[in-house]
């Protein structure tokens, strides 16, 4: 384990990815202590960046830096929420189906495929637009998590099925381990690094999905997210007249965040799967 960690720390792309990710997390968690976050109406519409408002203001005259800090916090929250839901659900179903085989596996596969062929983004739009009231950030996170668990289930299922006929599983069984023990102690640890990589990708896709759904105006109504900032810019004419501060910072933050998660994933794959090592 420590050796894996050492190998990870030797990989430059992991350092860069982790550095960027920690930077954004640190920004979301620590900046409110140093910067007075104020979402109130403070200046004229689309005031340009100046000494007081470092990144200008939005169409309502709200301080952009405050909006971005708040938006980043929302995006990370949605990302982690969907990541936890999609990974837990997908891993649990995948590992169980893959290990059990037979009709249990067929059933889990059927459900997975059913969810897989339904385009989750369409479902997301349908659910979001049908909930015109009380569409909260948590609800959006739940919906994304519950529609994107399928491919983690698939990936984990394949891995669990390949482990199932290993001798250590047979030995665990003749040691008297029940299915739950076999799954948690004798299969899950072997897949831990894989599941963690899936988790990272699910967080990234959660952040992107939330941004996309908010961008088209179906985002959370109770808070500011990076996606709702973009939506406001789009709807309130922020894309024109050189008002880059209305959309550029939010876009950059989303891009950096997702990029960081993706290169963390790629570098981990290189370390956990030695065949990919150069």
């Amino acid at each position, binding site marked *: 384990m420590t050796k894996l960690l050492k190998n990870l720390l030797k990989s430059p792309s992991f350092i860069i990815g982790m550095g960027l990710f920690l930077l954004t997390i640190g920004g979301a968690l620590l900046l409110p202590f140093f910067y007075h976050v104020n979402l109130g109406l403070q200046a004229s519409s689309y005031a340009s960046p100046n000494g007081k408002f470092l990144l200008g203001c939005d169409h309502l005259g709200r301080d952009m830096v405050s909006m971005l800090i708040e938006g980043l916090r929302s995006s990370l929250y949605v990302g982690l929420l969907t990541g936890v839901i999609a990974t837990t659900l997908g891993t649990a179903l995948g590992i169980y189906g893959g290990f059990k085989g037979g009709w249990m596996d067929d059933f889990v596969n059927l459900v997975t495929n059913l969810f897989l062929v339904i385009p989750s983004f369409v479902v997301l739009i349908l659910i979001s637009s049908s909930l015109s009231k009380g569409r909260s950030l948590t609800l959006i996170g739940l919906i994304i998590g519950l529609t994107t668990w399928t491919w983690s289930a698939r990936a984990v299922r394949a891995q669990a099925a390949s482990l199932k006929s*290993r*001798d*250590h599983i*047979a*030995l*665990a*069984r*003749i*040691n*008297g*381990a029940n299915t739950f023990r076999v799954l948690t*102690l*004798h299969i899950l*640890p*072997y897949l831990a690094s894989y599941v963690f990589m899936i988790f990272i990708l699910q967080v990234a896709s959660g952040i992107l999905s939330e941004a996309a759904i908010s961008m088209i105006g179906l985002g959370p109504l109770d808070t500011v997210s990076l996606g709702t900032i973009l939506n406001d810019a789009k709807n309130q004419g922020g894309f024109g007249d050189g008002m880059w501060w209305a959309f550029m910072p939010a876009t950059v933050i989303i891009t950096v965040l997702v990029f960081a998660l993706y290169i963390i994933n790629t570098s981990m794959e290189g370390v956990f799967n030695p065949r990919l090592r150069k």
Partner: protein
Amino acid sequence: MPNNSSAPAPVFYAKNVTKTFGHGKTLVKAVDDVSFSIADGEIVSIVGGSGCGKSVLAKVMLGLYKQNQGEFTYRGKAITDTRSHWNEVQSVFQDPFSCFNQFFSIRSQLKDALNILKVKPSKAEADARVDAGLMAVNITPKDIEGKYPFELSGGQMQRMLLARIFALRPKVLIADEPTSMVDACVRANILDYLMKLKVELGMTIVFVTHDIGLAYYVSDRLFIMHEGKIVESGTPDEVTQHPQSPHTVQLLEDIPEIHKEWLKR
């Protein structure tokens, strides 16, 4: 032995046992219409080449697989409660490297095995039994203290599997190629340990191997398997001196020369 008037039921009894995998065009008959019985205290070797179904048959005996057709009983009863079956019937597997979970120490896994026993030993007793098991295969318990499976050599791991059996003291042992991954010297040791098990614990041993020469030395009876069927069975002398099946002849011919000379004498 229970003191009843009727003859004791054989340890294993198989009648027309078939085990298949897959279905339709991909159907594979791993074990095909096999019948036999194994008596208490016998050492029986199941000999055959790769993919002849001997390991699958071993897993049917262990209760890890259930036959698709036919009747299979352990001491006169079908295997329904696997936990109580494994209380009495245990196994040594083929590949010692993949037998242990790499995330737990060897010692904790050996102790974990004692959970299958009907009468669970106390903590101290469990430790004592694991120590005794290790001692029986000439390993000082201190040497593996805190060690993980990947820190041991193949021969050591194979001995860990045998130590597990010495600690568990089952009534029946199914040894699936216990010597396939080790060198000749360790192999001789392992065979010694198996014989020790038989003498000390009065065990019934089913020995699964591809090596008919090895089987000849250790067994009371040989079953020769080919493509899922038992093509020949008998005492080692019968089978090796008057082979009836061409597959037996093939297996005998494949023994290195030095053994062949010895067998012909």
